């Protein structure tokens, strides 16, 4: 399977703390994206980082990409209870086909 791996599988933190999730993938990519899924519903696109970029920010989100290690990380700063969700990385190799990672379940407690 070409599916990427994410770790940790589950993460439990307190509000205000930072949450870091890691994603590893197997093949060369055009870009890598992060999505959030609340309670088994549809996915919300968070951020896209291209293969020639190393870091990208969007609000409280910071994404890094290391193509030499085929890995990416998502940092959520100052987490809130509303950030509780599953987070997936997804890579694109061509033709807009997404290959999703295994996901990280984040629980942020008040």
């Amino acid at each position, binding site marked *: 399977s070409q599916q990427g791996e994410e770790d940790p599988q589950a993460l439990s933190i307190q509000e205000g703390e930072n949450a870091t999730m890691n994603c590893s993938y197997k093949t060369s990519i055009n*870009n890598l*994206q992060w999505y959030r899924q609340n309670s*088994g519903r549809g*996915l919300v*696109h968070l951020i896209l980082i291209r293969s020639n970029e190393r870091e990208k920010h969007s609000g409280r989100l910071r994404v890094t990409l290391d193509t030499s290690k085929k890995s990416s990380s998502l940092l959520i700063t100052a987490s809130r209870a509303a950030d509780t969700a599953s987070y*997936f990385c997804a890579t694109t190799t061509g033709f*807009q*086909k997404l290959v999703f990672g295994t996901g990280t379940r984040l629980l942020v407690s008040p």
Partner: protein
Amino acid sequence: SAVISQKPSRDICQRGTSLTIQCQVDSQVTMMFWYRQQPGQSLTLIATANQGSEATYESGFVIDKFPISRPNLTFSTLTVSNMSPEDSSIYLCSVSRGLAGGPSTDTQYFGPGTRLTVL
């Protein structure tokens, strides 16, 4: 972004029956995708649906089991045929935002999903 709706939002079906899931987009898009998310798992691409051509299926998925229609640039259906309990999943459609005839972006926008339970 694109606004995507799916019908039904959930259903409980009997083994051996079929269910057709509809996906409606608020604007014309070139590419639409269907994914399956089995319980507690990640998403797996079933097929890519382009208007005016046959859907392209991923390894492990076949047209007889998951027939897809794409009659126009804003609508698609996925049928789950001859269902078994192993088909119990969330089925999601997504679009790659791009005007018909033009390049699509890599960002995909997802519908709310259809939660299917097969007894």
